[in-house]
């Protein structure tokens, strides 16, 4: 990890309130899918905000964020050439799967799953990507490797399957969940559903968690998650954010 002043290359609204922020990246530490960074909001609010990488190529990286609070409203007006104070890459990436990767993205969990899907496709996997959102206005046009099989789910049926990702996985499909390995990022309730599907199908499941953070480097113990292990709490920032779903105590 390192702290760098990155130049904004692009900051575009790609779906309703969803922005893609692309910026220069010093190649001495290469982000891997599942890893994250924090951006200094420069005053108000106070704490840095964590975001998962949504892409990385030599010299540049990107995140997808949702304009939702004071910090992200501030980010939404960044323009090409502006400087952002970035700390990263942080945390542990997804582990390469042994079986066919079944990637589940819910809401703003889309960013890291795009990165993961493209990375796996470039490394000769045939990933399945399931993208869930409330309606199609929240789903951007995706820049995906052609080896990725994409499925959309919307609560209102405005794009793809009508229903949530768990209902989609329980419906008729042209792949078998039990032949796959789940990698997921999204709302807690969706991750819990992914975990339950993994248990039912006796397959592996990695989840990327989000938690309020202060330091994001493992020092403050503010962002812990309760586990099923002897060590009751693990740090989302340092021990995660990607965890084997069986390690998490789901509530």
């Amino acid at each position, binding site marked *: *990890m*390192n*702290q760098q002043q990155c130049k904004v290359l692009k900051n575009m609204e790609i779906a309703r309130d969803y922005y893609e922020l692309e910026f220069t990246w010093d190649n001495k530490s290469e982000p891997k899918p599942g890893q994250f960074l924090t951006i*200094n909001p420069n005053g108000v*609010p*106070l*704490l*840095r905000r964590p975001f998962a990488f949504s892409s990385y190529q030599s010299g540049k990286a990107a995140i997808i964020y949702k304009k939702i609070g004071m910090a992200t409203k501030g980010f939404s007006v960044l323009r090409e050439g502006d400087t952002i*104070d970035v*700390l990263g890459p942080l945390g542990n990436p997804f582990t390469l799967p042994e079986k066919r990767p079944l990637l589940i993205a819910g809401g703003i969990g889309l960013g890291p799953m795009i990165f993961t899907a493209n990375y796996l496709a470039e490394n000769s996997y045939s990933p399945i990507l399931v993208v869930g959102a409330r309606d199609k206005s929240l789903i951007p046009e995706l820049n995906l490797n052609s080896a990725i099989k994409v499925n959309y789910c919307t609560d209102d049926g405005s794009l793809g399957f009508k229903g949530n990702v768990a209902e989609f996985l329980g419906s008729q499909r042209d792949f078998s969940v039990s032949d796959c390995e789940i990698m997921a990022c999204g709302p807690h309730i969706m991750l819990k559903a992914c975990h339950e599907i993994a248990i039912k199908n006796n397959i592996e499941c990695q989840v990327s968690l989000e*938690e*309020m*953070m*202060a*330091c*994001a*480097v*493992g*020092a*403050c*113990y*503010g*962002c*812990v*998650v*309760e586990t099923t292990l002897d*060590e*009751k*709490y693990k740090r989302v920032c*340092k021990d995660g954010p990607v965890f084997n779903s069986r390690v998490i105590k789901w509530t």
Partner: protein
Amino acid sequence: MDLKVKIRDKFLQNPVGTASGTYGYGEEYGELIDINKLGAIFTKAVTVLPREGNPLPRLTETPYGMINSIGLANGGVDGFLSKKVPFLNSVKNCAMIINVAGSTEDEYSNVIKMIDHVDSVWGYEINISCPNVKTGGLAFGTDPIQVERLTSTLRKLTNKPVIMKLTPNVTDITTVAVACEAGGADAISCINTVMGMKIDIHKKQPSIYQKTGGLSGPAIKPVGVAAVYRVTKKVSIPVIGLGGIMNADDAIEYLLAGASAIQVGTANFIDPNTPITVLEGIKDYMINNGLTKISDFHNFIL
């Protein structure tokens, strides 16, 4: 220019430290800054036995600050000796000051007895003020009689500096400071977090599990500066100022108020480089104002 700060019979190389609980034991931040440039690292609290810490949520953000209730999560003395001391031994120049917490006098004493043999332990900062643990420091830190007794007990256990860390959540912080000095404390850290609470009006519940927690960040800086000013008028031992220091100007305020050293806490979360920029800013200020030693800061505000 002489930046050294004398505490007991030892010297910090400069007045800038990092506050307990914000910096671990330094190892995480060692990747980002050269910690050997710091005056001191005040470590995460060490308790006799391991503590898993409080249930979630532990953190919430407030205007110009944050509230935390981590619950002194740490690996206990055994974890400290086996997992942290090797790192401490690798640090040069920067004083490693171990923050010690406990819920009885014996617990505080036992931590010091069990780790005092470690050469890389420079001294101790005694947490008598953490407002987070129901059975913990609050009672000690609010009662001058108990504070004096605890200080004098711990003072006898070691030849290393013993620094008492005060809570601002008292009627008159100067009475507690005077008790520390009477008990033989070598220095005082001032202040710990201010008790605070935030309520989520949509959930109609407190924002953190423990309901109340410790408020830190720029919101508490004036509270800390006032406490340092008042305490330094009543005691002659060095006072280490902390609370909401975000930049060199804030640190200079504390030094002018009477502090002999300062700690950077919450600001580490926002910019890990803050302790270094604070140190550089203090040096620049000293040059621009013709100050040659830290005690020169104390000549202006009477």
